[in-house]
Every structure is written in C-alpha cells, then in structure tokens.
C-alpha cells in the first residue's frame, strides 16, 4: 500500500492484514495521520522538506504484533509520532528515524500498558546525519504482574552534525509483581558541538500518593489506574480529532481499571 499526502491532510488508516505501507508526505504538506494497527506491518515514511505531521499509531492487534517503522526526514521537516499500546498481547517494535538534512525535527512519544504476562520489547533509534537536527524520545510504560518491558533508545549523532540535539526520557511505573523492566538509554555521539541528554525512572507508586487518592474515595485499583493514566495520556496529545481522542481516552480509562472493572484482579 502506498499513500501520498500533499497540502493539508487528515487521514485514518487501518492495517488489517500483514503488509508493507509506504507513506510520502510531500514538500510543505502538513497534517495528521491516525493509523490503527491490527496486523504486523512494515512502514516506511518519507517527509519532504518543510513538511509537518502528527502521526499516531494505535495498536489494536489481538495477537502478537511486530511493528517496523522507518522514517526519513528532509530539510526542516517536522514530525511528532506517537505509539499507544494498551493491548494484552506482546509487541515487538523496531523504529528508526533518519534526520537526513539540516533542520529536521523528530519527536517520539510512546505509551504502553504492560498487562499481565505480556512482553513489550522496543528498539528505537534516531539517527542524525545532518547538523541542526533535533530528536526527542519520550517513552512511558505501566507494568502489571509478570509484564516484561524493554526499551533500547538510541540517539545517534554522526560526525559533522554540529548543533544537533538528542534527548530522551523513559519513565516506567511498576504496579504488579514479578515484572521485568529493562531500559537501555544510548547516546552515540561523534561530534563535539551538540546537546544531548537522557533520563529514566523505574519505580512503584508513592504510598502517600496512593493514600491521598484513596482518601477521596478511589479504590486501590482505581487509584493505580489514575496514576497509570498520567503515564499514558500524553500520547493522546498527538490526536487532532477531538471526538476520537475522547473515545481513546475512555478506552484507556477502562483498560487501566478506572471504572473498577479489574477490581478483583
């Protein structure tokens, strides 16, 4: 499947069979894409100069998902990409974005809910091949019993890419028992005149916070759910369609147990 976008665009794509998808966003085009993924897919994205896009991937696969996303951004292209994954099956994501020309700007935000016994393994890289490029990776995950989360996040700045910036943050909230959380932040930098940073937190919710939430009438499960929402909700900022956003938000609240549906679990 091949999709071309020019001028102003807003589109919703459904991947319901194993496939390859090619997306070309032309010069100065700007818009948003909402891509619902129900099957394994390899996606290649090219953004021409001065184009701008919000692209949100939403996992709706009922089985193990393999997601492979490769993007190339040209001069002054700007992309904000999100991946929201609240499914109970495993996910393996490989994501690589190449900032080919000066001024290219890429931001990634992932939000993953590691339900019981699920494996969420991610390998992401933003490769800077030109100066004055910017990359930002923000990864958030909430883990329940026996979930296995792995995030390898690599900011790679090649020689000669002066004034490039690579930043990354990973926050993992662990709510259950016997979970595994492995976060490997990498900064491979072969140039002096750059800015780079990484930060990560992995931990359980604060007892005082839980008491505070419960003292207002939320059950233990609902309190954990509300804290989880705080981790996952930022990804929805990439959704421009307000009614769809509200729909996803309701689904999110349901999945984290805010309505008490997992009260006994």
């Amino acid at each position, binding site marked *: 499947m091949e999709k071309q976008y020019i001028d102003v665009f807003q589109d919703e794509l459904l991947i319901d069979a194993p496939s390859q998808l090619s997306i070309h966003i032309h010069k100065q085009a700007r818009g948003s894409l909402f891509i619902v993924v129900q099957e394994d897919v390899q996606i290649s994205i090219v953004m021409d100069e001065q184009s701008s896009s919000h692209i949100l991937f939403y996992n709706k696969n009922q089985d193990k998902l393999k997601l492979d996303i490769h993007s190339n951004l040209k001069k002054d292209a700007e992309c904000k990409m999100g991946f929201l994954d609240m499914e109970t099956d495993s996910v393996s994501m490989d994501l690589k974005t190449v900032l080919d020309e000066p001024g290219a700007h890429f931001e990634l935000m992932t939000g993953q809910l590691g339900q019981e016994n699920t494996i969420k393994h991610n390998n992401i890289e933003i490769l800077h091949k030109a100066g004055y490029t910017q990359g930002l990776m923000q990864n958030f995950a909430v883990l329940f019993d026996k979930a296995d989360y792995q995030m390898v996040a690599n900011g790679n700045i090649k020689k000669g890419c002066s004034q490039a910036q690579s930043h990354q943050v990973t926050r993992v909230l662990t709510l259950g028992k016997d979970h595994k959380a492995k976060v490997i932040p990498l900064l491979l930098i072969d140039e002096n005149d750059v800015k780079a940073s990484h930060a990560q937190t992995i931990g359980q919710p*604060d*007892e*005082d*916070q839980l*008491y*505070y*939430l*419960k*003292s*207002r*009438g*939320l*059950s*233990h499960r*609902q*309190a954990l759910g*509300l*804290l989880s*929402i*705080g*981790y996952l*909700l*930022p990804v929805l900022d990439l959704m421009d369609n307000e009614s769809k956003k509200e729909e996803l938000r309701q689904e999110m609240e349901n999945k984290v147990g*805010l*309505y*008490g549906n997992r009260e006994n679990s």
Partner: protein
Amino acid sequence: MTELVIKDLHVSVEDKEILKGLDLTIHSGERHALMGPNGNGKSTLLAAIMGNPKYKVTQGSITLDGEDVLKMEVDQRSKAGLFLGMQYPSEISGVTNSDFLRSCINARQEKPISLFKFIKEMDKAIQQLDMKPDLAHRFLNDGFSGGEKKRNEIVQMMMLKPSIAMLDEIDSGLDVDALKIVSEAIDQCQKENDMGLLIVSHYARFYEYLQPTHAHVLVDGRIVVSGGQELIEKIDTQGYEWLEEEYHVKANKEDTRKRPTSLGLCGAKRG
C-alpha cells in the same frame, strides 16, 4: 442526622502510643475546634479516623452512624461520608484536577456525573475559592503554592460533599485575604450540606471567622477540657500552660534540640 462517635481511642505510630484513650462525638451541623500544643495527637486523630495506614489503632472504636469505621478501607470511609483536608496534600504529576475529581465523584455513585454538571460545579467551587480558572487542567497539586494546595483541598470538599469533614491546619499557608475566602467557603459548604466539622488550627482568627460550636483541647493523647468560644479565647490569650496545673497533665514537647548534621559520605578513594 450524621453522628461520628469516637470512644476510648488509642493510636500508635511506629510502636509509640500517641492517642491514649480519646472520646469525642460530632453531629451534623456542629463545628468542633480541636486545639492543643504541637505533638500531642491532633493530626494523629484525624489521620486515624481517615485510615492512614501509618497509624495503628490499638484500642477503642470509631463509628459513623453506627457503622464500624475501623473495619472500612480508606476509600470506603470516604464513600461513607468522611473527608480529611490534609496538612500536606500529595502532589501527583500527570493527573489533572478535573480527571481526579471526576473519578472520585464517579467512584461514589452508580451513574457517572454528566460533564455539564461536573464543569458547572467545579467552576463554582473554583470561583468561590478565588482560584485561577486553569485549576481544572493543572496537575493535582503539582507546582501549587502552599496556599493553592489548601484552597484546592476545600475545592475537593465542596465537590465531594462529605457528611463529616476534618480540616488539618487548612489555614496554614493562607494569607489574610485567602483565610477569609476559605472560611466563607467552609461556612457555605456546611450550610448547604449540613456536615459536621472537626477543625484543627492554631490561629484564633480562623476560629473567629468560623465560630465553632464546640472546642476541645488535646494534651498528651487525651481531650483534657472541652467547651465553647470562651475556651478558644482563653487559649488565645493565656496559651496552654495553665492546663498542666489545672488538669494535672503534662504536654508533650516537640524535640527542638539541634541534631548533628550529616555532610554525607566522602567520595574520595581510600588507599
């Protein structure tokens, strides 16, 4: 008519007994002022009623309209009608005030509150507390000033409409104008919901605004004297020392001795 009855309450924190047999009864519409020197159990009482897991009830009973409060989880106590406006409210980043409050309201009723009604009630509370309109969209207490946090506690109280509200030094951190605004909001909230109030404060001005119907002084884990406005005035002018003589009690003094300060570990390698 709601009735909160506390009988012979003993509470320990980390194996140290703080409350040593406390009796107190609060009804709807009443305003109880709880005073006493620092470190004698006022906050402990409120936290124990609310069910803070750090506080262990070793003896006695707490009932709300005959129901055993001590058998309830923290959230059940809230749903039963208890509210504690905390001295140090938690900051929770990532959770907006509106999401939090909407979830709390929905947790206590079968049918979710309509968005229109929720926004209307929240706007009313925000206006009454003279807070910035963006409060609903800010993260819960995150980056709030001390005064904003206290006012936000009252916003929550107004939205949750408890039958018994306990306010733990809710006036600390408030300037003179804010104190008046908060007092008026508490007054109106009580009139609208006929709730009982248990107020801990050190400041007579706050009590002047609220005009408590009852006053109690808590010393060394027990209520040693109860009264009305005249007791508040006496404490304000004479302090607590006269109580020790008159009632043969000894107040716990907060440990104000200077302790040695650790500068941390030396990072230099040895050898």
